[in-house]
């Protein structure tokens, strides 16, 4: 008799209060079935994307976000282009407000440079800024890459086994509240200063969201999809590659997105504490030298970095996972 691998619904309350509470807190409604256009349309009507990408702390969020994205279609927020224009206008307005406040001296000159001063700093110091950005990116991407790959693979592997999943349960619950940033001194002790240490710490920190999401999503594969796979004659290997992995992919993508944010914060924190180069080092030196405008310039670049990473991963997810309503909606 061929051994059937079963994916029983995880006995949440008993074995994983963490997941239970998250499931409780995020409203998961069934995806509303919408009557789509019956004739082939040039492109299916996309639901209005949510204006901001809400922070979702947990793999269960994928389901919730998919559900919410469905409801987003009912949110009459106007066409996407108009909203983007409004957002841009908002940014312009904020800049204008800042200029006003600094010009009229309501905000002290030395600590609050004017918009022009920051712009000039950005332009004038473009070289060093970009160089620091490059250094930061290097450690960041290496760490993120390792963490994503390891997290995805291990997460799926652990998720397919009921026992492995239970065994890692408490470990995950304990590792979650530990801020990896507190490990910076230890990391310096163990691995000195340099890209290796930074990438290593980043990898450790960024591993968890990907791993947790992958593991959870693997457990939560729709049982009927597995039934369908079995009904079509899929063996365990085919079930894994044809059903489990594609099912878990959206959650893994979300995990990577969260991990990117964590990676950014950790990389920069290491740079600040250890005094090694990168954006953190840049801003630190600017502060020590009293060059406030350069500090702001560094912060602006940092914001752009964070924003581009998140948007980039989101765009990749949309391309690779066209069926995931959450990916489609998070434009």
């Amino acid at each position, binding site marked *: 008799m061929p051994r059937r691998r079963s994916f029983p619904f995880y006995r949440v309350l008993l074995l994983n209060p963490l997941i239970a509470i998250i499931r409780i807190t995020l409203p998961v409604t069934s995806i509303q079935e919408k009557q789509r256009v019956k004739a082939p349309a040039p492109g299916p009507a996309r639901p209005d994307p949510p204006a901001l990408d809400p922070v979702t702390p947990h793999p269960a969020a994928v389901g919730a976000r998919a559900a919410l994205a469905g409801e987003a279609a009912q949110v009459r927020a106007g066409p996407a282009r108009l909203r983007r224009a409004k957002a841009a206008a908002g*940014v312009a307005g904020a800049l204008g407000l800042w200029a006003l406040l600094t010009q009229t001296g309501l905000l002290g000159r030395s600590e609050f440079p004017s918009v022009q001063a920051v712009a000039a700093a950005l332009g004038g110091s473009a070289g060093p800024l970009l160089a620091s950005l490059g250094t930061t990116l290097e450690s960041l991407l290496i760490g993120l890459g390792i963490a994503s790959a390891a997290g995805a693979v291990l997460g799926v592997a652990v998720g397919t086994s009921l026992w492995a999943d239970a065994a890692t349960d408490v470990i995950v619950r304990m590792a979650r509240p530990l801020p990896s940033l507190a490990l910076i001194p230890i990391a310096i002790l163990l691995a000195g200063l340099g890209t290796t240490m930074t990438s290593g710490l980043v990898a450790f920190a960024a591993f968890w969201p990907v791993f947790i999401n992958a593991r959870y999503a693997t457990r939560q594969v729709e049982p009927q999809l597995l039934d369908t796979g079995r009904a079509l004659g899929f063996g365990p290997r085919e079930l894994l590659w044809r059903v489990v992995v594609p099912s878990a992919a959206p959650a893994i993508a979300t995990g990577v997105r969260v991990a990117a944010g964590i990676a950014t914060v950790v990389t920069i924190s290491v740079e600040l504490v250890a005094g090694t180069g990168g954006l953190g080092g840049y801003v630190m030196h600017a502060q020590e030298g009293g060059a406030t405008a350069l500090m702001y310039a560094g*912060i602006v670049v940092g914001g752009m970095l964070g924003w581009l990473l998140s948007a980039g991963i989101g765009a990749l997810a949309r391309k690779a996972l066209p069926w995931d309503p959450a990916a489609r909606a998070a434009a």
Partner: protein
Amino acid sequence: MMTPVAVPPAVRRRVAGRRLGLRSAGWLGVLAVAAAWQLTSLILHKPALPTFTTALSAVGPVVTGPALTSDILPSLGRALTGFVISAVAGIVIGLTLGYARRLGDYCTGVIDFLRSVPAPLLIPLAIVLLGLGGQMVVAVVVAAAVWPVLVNAFDAARRTEPLYLDTARSCGIKGAALLRIVVLPAALPMVMAGLRIALSTSLAVLVVAEMLGASSGIGYFILQAQQTFQIPQTYAGIIVLAGLGWFLDTAFLLAERRLLRWERAVTRDRHG
């Protein structure tokens, strides 16, 4: 009346045994990690990596010693202060902007950018503006922790079930009362999720801020210990921090469970 059917005792035993096994497997996993740590430290024999038992035994003196009042409690105070300020600000601003759709639309660009700035990058600026010490730390914590709350509140307010709003309006509720009576409770689940993240963010940013710009606190303690080569104390500090984080998280979850009792019932109904 259902015709009683004997469930084979073998099946029953198997089921019960399995559940017990799974539950203990978690703790076995932790034991395995601790054992691995112990073994590695014994093999490598590096002063930078004390044994698990050494690190654990250093926790006691740290928690009961002077560090309690000079570092642990101040950190706790700063983290909670920052968290509470972030929570209030995030909820109020987020819900208002989310509900007032037109205004919110203009703010999304700014919010998107500001929240993408890695919070530690703001620490040098905070030091320039507020000097060193607790105030700066709390400010940075707020600057970091407000975003998860704000964004989630914003999004949840936007997605408020139109039916709820219509029902409330037809009862004559409007304005701020509408926010308080309909939007906030409906947004609560998502807001709670955001608050939970904000809590862990608070702790994380707290640590870095204290390492860079304070002369007290757990972050300062850990860095000090490392710089003065008090290795077991360094690890002890981290363990204490992790414990603190776990404790706060659990407390939060319990509070959340109580607050969201109605949500559980609704979710349960939906899932049948």
